[in-house]
């Protein structure tokens, strides 16, 4: 793709760091509600030079996404609008541009990658069409040419089998592949500015790694200036030269990455950096005492989902989501499950809480699951509670949070309404919320607060085991840290055991006592934190670790082999079974599977 355009001719050849391609000047974004104007972003200024990467970091709701939407001219009308300031792109004020000129700009000169790769592609159109139309919207090329260029763009993002992808639909692609498509789309026209809004938050560590590498390579190749929005300081450290830290719609600190990391001036920035979990410094964890009894015992647990087909809609295939998993969780212990998306972590959580039927044996606090009567099941449920990944989804949006937290008490008939309300208020205080928030609805809380509400609800019955399925993944670092602290405090106080599910190795290292690494429904390695992080044995475990971004701008990452294959699928024809792994004890309960599972490893 060699072409020369007037506007950015030579941009890649002679980068002049001093000349800004985009400058934001006193940007204020307001929302109009109930006749009043309320600023959501106030007085934000920064400049972006050609070929530069600038990061915008900050807690959730600090106005990062709004800023990027304002630059794109895509603020949802009529409530949201730019009420002051200017956004200059090569001297032109974008906020004053008529829609038709702005449209010509979008995608062509300024492109954007959105937060959610799963929902940002149109589900009913092929990848090829969605790519080609972006090209045809701005350049007078034939369909055939557009297709050729789309294919070219796909090749550039190193997607596997690009020709086949052209004819596929978004749902047929994995999250990482979709994000690659989004990047290909954004970069197809070699824009001057690329805005990447949390491009990797929703992705696995391994995939995140690949996407970040890709962005960096492409930038080097094309000289695009990037605005990278993220709350992951590890990502910031690796990718950006300069960083803007935002809080409540204002930039609290701006500077070179190295300087901010080494010498943060503002208290907020310091907090932010302090909250970042770092690998290798997990301190608070204890090894389970040898006399501890198990709260949960899993023996050869299998969960399979039927796929039906044929005239009589008989079962033709099965998803072997969990394939013979055995482990114990001791009292007061934090047991973590890690692994890539789709490896069966959530399924184990669901089996443990009785949400999916299973084979094999699961014992929880003395009850054997499966075939429990309604009443017994209810009793068992007092002992195991689950906290889901997305707190918004786990809370009925039409109920007040006070009622939501009181639910388990009402269901199990504990106490009078007054006592219940008292108890709920107490729980609220325990998780750091206030009494007067009881009558609000879930959407009126921040993500972190919502997760606390979920935790308060899980605590209401004083369970012996809490399953935390990606409970902190969606939270930004500062909030994440607070929630993790809370979990830890509760563990000490009530002796609750946790089954902690996460793909974030740093978090896992910080809080776990023991860890199991899963791949394709089976455990490939299991041991104490020290064993797993200290001397990972299985190649898959090693790869997971290597993928974690390190929040240290000084560190240079050793090159990793790039993989672009898909995670193999756990779907088998009826009668076929995956190969079973056998775990070997290599000492002190450190279990490792035979090496050589699957083609990817």
């Amino acid at each position: 793709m060699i072409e020369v355009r007037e506007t950015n001719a030579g941009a890649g050849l002679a980068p002049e760091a001093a000349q800004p391609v985009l400058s934001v000047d006193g940007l204020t974004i307001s929302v109009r509600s109930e006749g009043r104007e309320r600023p959501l972003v106030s007085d934000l200024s920064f400049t972006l030079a050609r070929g530069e990467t600038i990061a915008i970091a900050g807690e959730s709701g600090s106005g990062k996404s709004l800023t990027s939407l304002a630059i794109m001219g895509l603020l949802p009308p009529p409530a949201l609008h730019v009420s002051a300031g200017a956004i200059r792109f090569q001297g032109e004020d974008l906020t004053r541009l008529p829609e038709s000129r702005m449209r010509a700009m979008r995608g062509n000169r300024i492109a954007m990658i959105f937060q959610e790769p799963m929902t940002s592609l149109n589900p009913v159109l092929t990848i090829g069409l969605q790519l080609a139309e972006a090209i045809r919207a701005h350049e007078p090329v034939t369909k055939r040419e557009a297709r050729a260029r789309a294919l070219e763009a796909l090749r550039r993002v190193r997607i596997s089998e690009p020709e086949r992808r052209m004819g596929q639909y978004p749902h047929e692609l994995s999250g990482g592949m979709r994000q690659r498509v989004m990047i290909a789309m954004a970069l197809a026209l070699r824009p001057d500015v690329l805005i990447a809004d949390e491009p990797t938050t929703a992705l696995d560590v391994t995939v995140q790694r690949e996407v970040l590498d890709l962005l960096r390579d492409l930038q080097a190749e094309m000289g695009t200036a990037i605005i990278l929005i993220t709350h992951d300081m590890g990502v910031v450290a690796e990718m950006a030269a300069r960083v803007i830290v935002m809080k409540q719609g204002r930039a609290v600190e701006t500077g070179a990455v190295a300087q901010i990391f080494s010498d943060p001036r503002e208290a907020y920035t310091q907090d932010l950096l302090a909250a970042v979990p770092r690998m290798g410094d997990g301190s608070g964890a204890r090894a389970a005492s040898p006399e501890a009894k198990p709260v949960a015992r899993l023996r050869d647990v299998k969960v399979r989902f039927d796929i039906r087909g044929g005239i009589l809609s008989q079962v033709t295939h099965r998803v072997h989501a969990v394939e013979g998993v055995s482990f114990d969780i001791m009292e007061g212990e934090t047991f973590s499950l890690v692994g890539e998306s789709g490896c069966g972590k959530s399924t184990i959580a669901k089996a443990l809480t009785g949400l999916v039927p299973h084979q094999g044996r699961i014992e929880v606090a003395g009850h054997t699951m499966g075939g429990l009567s309604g009443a017994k099941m209810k009793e068992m449920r007092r002992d195991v509670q689950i906290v889901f990944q997305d707190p918004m989804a786990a809370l009925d949006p039409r109920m007040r949070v006070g009622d939501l937290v009181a639910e388990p008490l009402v269901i199990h008939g504990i106490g009078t309404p007054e006592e219940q309300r008292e108890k709920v208020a107490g729980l609220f205080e325990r998780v750091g919320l206030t009494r007067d928030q009881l009558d609000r609805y879930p959407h009126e809380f921040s993500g972190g607060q919502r997760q606390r509400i979920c935790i308060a609800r899980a605590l209401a019955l004083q369970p012996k085991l809490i399953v935390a399925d990606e409970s902190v993944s969606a939270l930004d670092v500062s909030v994440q840290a607070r929630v993790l602290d809370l979990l830890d405090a509760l563990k000490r106080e009530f002796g609750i055991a946790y089954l902690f599910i996460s793909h974030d190795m740093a978090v896992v290292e910080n809080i776990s006592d023991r860890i199991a690494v899963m791949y394709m429904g089976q455990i490939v390695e299991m041991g104490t934190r020290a064993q797993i992080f200290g001397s990972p044995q299985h190649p898959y475990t090693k790869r997971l670790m290597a993928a974690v971004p390190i929040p240290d701008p000084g560190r240079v990452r050793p090159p990793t082999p790039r993989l672009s294959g898909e995670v193999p699928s756990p779907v088998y024809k009826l009668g076929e079974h995956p190969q079973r792994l056998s775990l070997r004890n290599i000492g002190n309960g450190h279990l490792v599977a035979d090496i050589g599972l699957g083609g990817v490893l």
Partner: protein
Amino acid sequence: MTDATLAEGPARPQSALRRLLRRKLAILGMAIIAIVTLGAIFAPWIAPFAPQDQMFDGLTLEGAPMPPGEKFWLGTDLLGRDLFSRILYGARTSLIIGVVANGLALIIGTLIGVTAGYFRGWIGAVLMRFTDLMMAFPALLLAICLAAIFTPSLWIVAMVIALVNWVQTARVVYTETSALAEREFVAAEKTLGAGTARILFRHILPHLVPMIIVWGTLGISTTVLLEATLSYLGVGVQPPTPSWGNIIFENQTYFQAAPWLVFIPGAAILLLALSFNLVGDALRDVLDPTQRGRE
């Protein structure tokens, strides 16, 4: 309770009714519904004439009905009866059909749809096949047969309408419920030990309200007209009992010669349906806590 809870008073959100009353259109809608309902209830006192009175001066010598005028405010019908009085009394029938029968259809449809959507497995399958079966019937034919077998009366007609009209609601509710049943908060409730009834009524049903409101309000016109069709076929409410629908149907061929006989009751149906829609729309927003602060 303690002072603390008392102190919460102002922070506690206003009741749904209070918030409803803040909306002008909703008030307009409620006012119209109230007027219609009161008109129906107090028809004997308000109506200037008895609805079945065929007045001598209600027809011209050629037997044509009288246009709206001083004595007959909304004119007379083909039998020389006062249209205004008939509309007042007709409101009784039409409210029962449009609100009760339609409401019943909604309830049946919702119950079946929710049950089938939530319980997959054989219960769901049986209910949905039954729904498919009912859907495959030409509704009108079914109504005619049912109404002909049971001697027609207002309540029978209302039942028949409810019996044929639930099907579409059931279909739509089914789809929606299937999606809701997969939502995480339902799983969360299960892990708390919530029983099926609790999940269905406290957590799934409230989410169906917006859709039910749309179907319910649009259904008012449809059912009122269906009653008219049935009357017209002789299996509906029997003459001389007026209903808005049968006033239209009795006189529809006269829409040029005596437009008031068709367009006035037509406007009444429209107004009623629209009012319910206004209230429904407002109710939906008010009941939806996610809309709070965005009014």
